[in-house]
């Protein structure tokens, strides 16, 4: 479904991503783990068009994402849940969700999808008219995911959904991610919490200082000594 | 460490002395065209204004656009002392500076609670209020201004006061007090939790900035024969803001360079009469498009940078970006 071929990304003079290639198969949950500053978020931002690779290409269902505008990437069905939630704090929950469906014109289906999101996150329905900024961290994360769902993505990119959340909430969020995946959305997950990420993913990549150092089925990686030592605290 | 510092100080004194001596020599011999002299003096006055505003805007991060108001206070106070009360010029300069500092302190105390654009508009408002006050005092000539001010300001006065301003503010910045101001710019809350009395330092920066603006005003008044409130309107404040931004917020040498460059450009553009301001406007836009961080960013131009560059080292503590 998504193929990243040997991309190089720079921040000014800093070479942030050095020749990374990865693949996401339709229907899978693929995770990208690694230390802070390894370049995980940079890869996601490059896929969704916020950054441009200097060389290499990103192919999604035959289309070259690396030359497309961000809004066209969203239109083609790739949507990112950004790190730190980034909900529109000065707008209501409902307006946030409506913005998720910004590019869609199918009013009827939008309504249906809205109901689906509320079904999944009943708490959002309760707080429909509340300003997003007044939600707690966990609720904001739910809103960010719900907002992304509103664009009907076929590939959802999640950036650190567990960051700064209480253990109980982390669990809840991950089970929701699993559910979203089961209902047909492919997922590329970037996570600090390697333990949780590997527990729900099918396939995983390990990133270190801008390079992929390890990849394999999630279960295998979870057992690997190297990963255990560095990322699982074992 | 101590040794390098001394070497730098000696070098600086040498360069300044050379600059002073050569120009003083030209003046004494009558070889300096009076027009160049005017513009040299204007450069000095503008450097004082830009550097003192940079302390407030660039180093302490308090967005002030009423600096011409302090200049007005200094100009009027000193002129009243010399014209109406027949006091000596040094006393007039000091009184003008102190009066401006006092006004700066009084204005700073309540307004520095405000942030960003709100502070900017409040300082702009104060600048305009100061202007209106002078318009309404007939004792100092009201709107038509105070004329007949003796022509006392000379190259000596301007040179030494400008040098004093720059050295004072540079030393201030490189002390714990200056670092306290900079930390406010960087993160006010963190500064406060580091034990820094942010109000005190904001007001301090504001007061010192106003003090030197007042001194610059006194020099200005005693060079140009007449002062009127409208000379110190918000467009004048904007002129100084432009110098600070163009030179680089948080760079003293940047302010000095920009004040010099803009004064010269302004003089060169006099001959272009009607299109003068059009050229000036285009220049502003283009410079900002190419160097939005200003000529110097927040770096300082110093001989030691050249030295280190010469040795092929990366310059350290002041490099950013």
């Amino acid at each position, binding site marked *: 479904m998504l193929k990243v071929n040997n991309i190089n990304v720079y921040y000014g003079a800093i070479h942030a991503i050095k020749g990374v290639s990865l693949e996401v198969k339709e229907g899978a949950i693929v995770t990208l783990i690694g230390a802070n500053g390894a370049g995980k978020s940079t890869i996601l931002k490059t896929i969704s068009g916020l950054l441009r690779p200097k060389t290499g290409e990103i192919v999604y269902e035959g289309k070259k994402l690396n030359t497309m505008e961000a809004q066209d990437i969203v239109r083609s069905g790739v949507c990112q849940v950004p790190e730190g939630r980034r909900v529109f704090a000065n707008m209501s929950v409902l307006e946030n969700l409506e913005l998720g469906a910004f590019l869609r014109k199918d009013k009827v289906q939008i309504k249906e999808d809205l109901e689906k999101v509320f079904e999944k996150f009943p708490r959002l329905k309760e707080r429909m008219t509340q300003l997003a900024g007044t939600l707690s961290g966990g609720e904001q994360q739910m809103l960010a995911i719900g907002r992304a769902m509103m664009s009907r993505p076929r590939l959802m990119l999640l950036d650190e959904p567990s960051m700064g959340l209480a253990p109980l909430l982390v669990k809840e969020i991950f089970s929701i991610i699993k559910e979203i995946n089961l209902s047909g959305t492919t997922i590329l997950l970037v996570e600090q919490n390697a333990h949780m990420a590997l527990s729900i993913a099918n396939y995983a990549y390990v990133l270190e200082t801008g390079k992929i150092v390890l990849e394999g089925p999630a279960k295998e990686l979870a057992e690997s000594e190297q990963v255990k030592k560095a990322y699982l605290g074992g | 460490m101590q040794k390098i510092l001394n070497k730098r100080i000696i070098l600086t004194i040498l360069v300044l002395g050379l600059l002073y001596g050569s120009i003083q020599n030209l003046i004494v011999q009558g070889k300096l*065209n009076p027009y160049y002299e005017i513009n040299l003096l204007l450069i000095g006055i503008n450097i004082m204004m830009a550097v003192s505003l940079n302390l407030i805007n660039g180093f302490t991060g308090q967005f002030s656009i009423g600096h011409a108001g302090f200049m007005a206070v200094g100009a009027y106070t000193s002129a009243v002392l010399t014209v109406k009360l027949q006091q000596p010029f040094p006393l007039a300069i000091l009184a003008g500076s102190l009066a401006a500092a006092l006004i700066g302190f009084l204005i700073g105390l309540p307004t520095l609670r405000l942030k960003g654009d709100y502070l900017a508009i409040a300082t702009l408002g104060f600048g305009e209020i100061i202007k209106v006050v002078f318009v309404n005092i007939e004792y100092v000539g009201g*709107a038509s201004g105070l004329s007949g001010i003796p022509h006392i300001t000379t190259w000596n006065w301007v040179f030494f006061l400008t040098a004093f301003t720059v050295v004072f503010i540079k030393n201030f910045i490189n002390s714990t007090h200056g670092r306290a101001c900079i930390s406010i710019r960087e993160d006010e809350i963190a500064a406060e939790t580091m034990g820094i009395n942010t109000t005190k330092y904001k007001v301090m920066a504001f007061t010192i900035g106003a003090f030197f603006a007042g001194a610059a005003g006194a020099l200005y008044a005693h060079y140009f024969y*007449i002062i009127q409130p409208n000379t110190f309107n918000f467009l004048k404040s904007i002129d100084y803001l432009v110098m600070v931004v163009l030179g680089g917020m948080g760079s003293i040498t940047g302010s000095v360079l920009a004040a010099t460059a803009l004064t010269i450009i302004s003089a*060169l553009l006099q001959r272009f009469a009607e299109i003068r301001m059009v050229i000036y406007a285009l220049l502003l836009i*283009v*410079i900002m498009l190419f160097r939005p961080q200003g000529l110097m960013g927040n770096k300082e131009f110093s001989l030691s940078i050249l030295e280190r560059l010469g040795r092929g080292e990366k310059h350290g503590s002041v490099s950013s970006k």
Partner: protein
Amino acid sequence: MKLSKKVALILVLAFLVTIAGGCGGSKPAPAPAPAPAPEKPKEILIGANFELSGNVATFGISAVNAIEMAFAEINAGGGVNGIPLKLVKVDNKSDTGEATNVATKLITQDKVVALLGPVTSTNVLGAVPVATQYKVPLITPTGTNPKITVDDSGKTREWAFRTCFIDPFQGFVGANFAINTLKAKTAAIFIEKNSDYAKGLAEVFEKTFTEKGGKIVAKEYFVTEDKDFRATLTKIKAANPDVLYVPSYYEQDGLIAKQARELGYTKPIVGADGWDSEKLLQIAGAKALQEVYFTNHYSPQDTDPKLVKFVENYKAKYGSVPDALAALGYDAAYILADAIKRAGAPEPAKIKDALAATKGFVGVTGSVSIDDKHNPVKGAVIITFDKDGKQIFKEKVNP
């Protein structure tokens, strides 16, 4: 984007090179040798120190346009004593310091033999000390502050002249007209706070009016930038004066007349020569100009061919009708040319003496003689408006 940035960079560089080049050319020789003046100079350099940018640029540009036109006419007629005049035009940003700066430049760098401008009194006061120091005559076409030509001790300033009406006479005429012709017992004065012209006129008007038994019931102020005078006019109207004296320039005057009438003030309004402009009618409308009188130097019905020609030429050249500042600037240029001619040689001291001796010079703003205080002596007329807003002659007053 990249490309346009490059283009912009090249443009700026080109600019700077041009400017630097221009500057290099004018650098004075390190030691200006006192070369003996040539028999007949190629051209006579006159400095124009005017407000071409800043808040009173409108006035400065008007005046300088008329001066350039006058110079072109003079040169077309063979110049002065066969030598063409050349205007060195410089902007002073409507700033007093800059006016000093520019005056110094004109005298010491460009070596002009006489200075014209600036237009506002304050800026003139910034330039007069420079003219005095370097002994070059300065003529302001419009600066009305008495201090321009007379210093604090009452002594006439040797090098400073003006060619505009001095305030006292016009204010005096205005007040007499209000009392005698309009039979006013009470008056209100509406003064432009930051204009020496308005302040001077108002002062004399008030003095004359009260001396003759009238009473000033309201004295209010505005600033040049104002466009809405309703609040103050409401206050003035409440004081119920028989006459309202507004000695300003036509843009504000027009708005004041219009707004006063809108607020139901129907009594006479009296003004001074600043009211004289074709734009006044467009701004105020004919209805607002009923019962409006102003003092001026010449009458519109006086079909002086000189004036008609001036108005036509100005219109043709600049696409707009000349205002009072243009007329005054035009006359200043001719008075200067006349003085140079009489001086015999384009030397500052001789020009100064010739200027001081100006007698009965007939310009577009009337006949001008320079008195011992370096002020012009002119006659005055009173103008009013017919129902279409056309200026009509009311009465003539002589000094």
